[in-house]
């Protein structure tokens, strides 16, 4: 019979207490949180467009672009670190290599149980989308994210307070109409931009069709345009044709659902953290943030998993369903 140890306080309670006191000090003396200005479209950092293309229009420097560059740099540095560690020659990984190896192994096994012999084609898409989205969602934990930025004039804004040099602070005092400021952060989570999620969704669905054509040849498109059974089975053959048409609509629905699932979860998380930070700034945002990180990881996994499942379905034709 094992004896149970008496539960004792750990040593991290001093860290938690110290951080709570630091939070209280910074809220009372340095910067009190304000009600956030929520905007679905990412805010513009510079008010003039960067480049203007003739037909498409203006391209502004938006909130989420520096974040995207940061996420790309983090992923590239991770890949370079793993490569350097693998060049040493010892097969036992430690540190970041072991983490990446575990991740790749778990994803590869998952792909292998579903895909069978097409694993090598499908696995890169699953892993790339997963790693990109999970790093993009975990980058939101860096300090200064969505809090440090440019103060813009705004009608219903707040007053600002001068700190030092070129740094101002925004204080929760409503300003007169037309003379207030709001904050436009420098960095905003990448997944809260509808363009990012739409691009990923379009890539995923388009590559699903490509994988289908690669494995089944041009006969893959009879999934959508099913005219084989119109004349052989008179009544039901026409229903097959309508089912093919429904499949086409379902592909478009997949694009929409991919986009709005990721965008909705991450954007509502951002809004929740900002609102909770303005209402109960001392301890509550930490709990909400943990929940948001968990949801971000789950959404990355779901995005990748759904892409993988759709690709596996694209490699299996109609007739093979009768084999089960």
């Amino acid at each position: 019979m094992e004896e149970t140890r008496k539960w004792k306080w750990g040593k991290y309670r001093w860290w938690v207490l110290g951080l709570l006191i630091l939070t209280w000090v910074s809220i009372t003396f340095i910067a009190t949180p304000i009600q956030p200005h929520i905007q679905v479209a990412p805010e513009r950092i510079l008010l003039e467009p960067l480049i203007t293309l003739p037909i498409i229009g203006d391209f502004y420097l938006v909130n989420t672009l520096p974040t995207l560059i940061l996420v790309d740099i983090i992923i590239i540095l991770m890949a370079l670190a793993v490569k350097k560690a693998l060049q040493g020659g010892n097969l036992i990984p430690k540190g970041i290599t072991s983490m990446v190896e575990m991740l790749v192994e778990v994803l590869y096994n998952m792909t292998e149980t579903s895909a069978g012999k097409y694993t090598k084609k499908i696995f890169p898409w699953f892993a790339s989308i997963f790693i990109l989205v999970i790093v993009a969602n975990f980058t939101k934990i860096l300090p200064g994210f969505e809090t440090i930025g440019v103060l813009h004039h705004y009608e219903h804004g707040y007053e600002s307070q001068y700190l030092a040099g070129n740094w101002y602070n925004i204080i929760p005092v409503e300003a007169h109409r037309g003379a207030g400021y709001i904050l436009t952060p420098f960095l905003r989570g990448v997944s809260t931009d509808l363009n990012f999620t739409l691009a990923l969704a379009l890539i995923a669905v388009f590559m699903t069709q490509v994988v289908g054509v690669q494995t089944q040849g041009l006969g893959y498109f009879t999934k959508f345009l099913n005219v084989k059974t119109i004349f052989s089975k008179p009544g039901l053959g026409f229903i097959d044709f309508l089912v093919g048409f429904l499949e086409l609509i379902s592909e478009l629905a997949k694009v929409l659902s991919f986009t709005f699932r990721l965008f909705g979860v991450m954007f509502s998380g951002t809004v929740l953290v900002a609102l909770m930070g303005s209402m109960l700034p001392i301890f509550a945002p930490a709990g909400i943030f943990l929940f948001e990180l968990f949801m971000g990881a789950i959404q990355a996994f779901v995005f990748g998993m759904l892409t993988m499942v759709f690709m596996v379905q694209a490699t299996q034709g109609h007739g093979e369903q009768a084999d089960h």
Partner: protein
Amino acid sequence: MDGELIQAGKFIGAGLSMIGAAGAGVGIGLLVQGALNGMARNPDAYGNLLTTMILGIAFAEAIAIYCLVVSFMMLFVL
């Protein structure tokens, strides 16, 4: 007066559109019930069932997120 009416309409619409999240709640509850039943019958399958349950919860929650997105659109965009 017109601007206030539109603002009131926005708030009412945003509130009404979140009724759809009830379906997601029921769906997630049914999912966890099924997963717990399976885990109780067969404790060895815990890892497999957990992964599949988390995946299913993400799908069911996505419907509630669509309602939330419509609600945000009504409040902040349109």
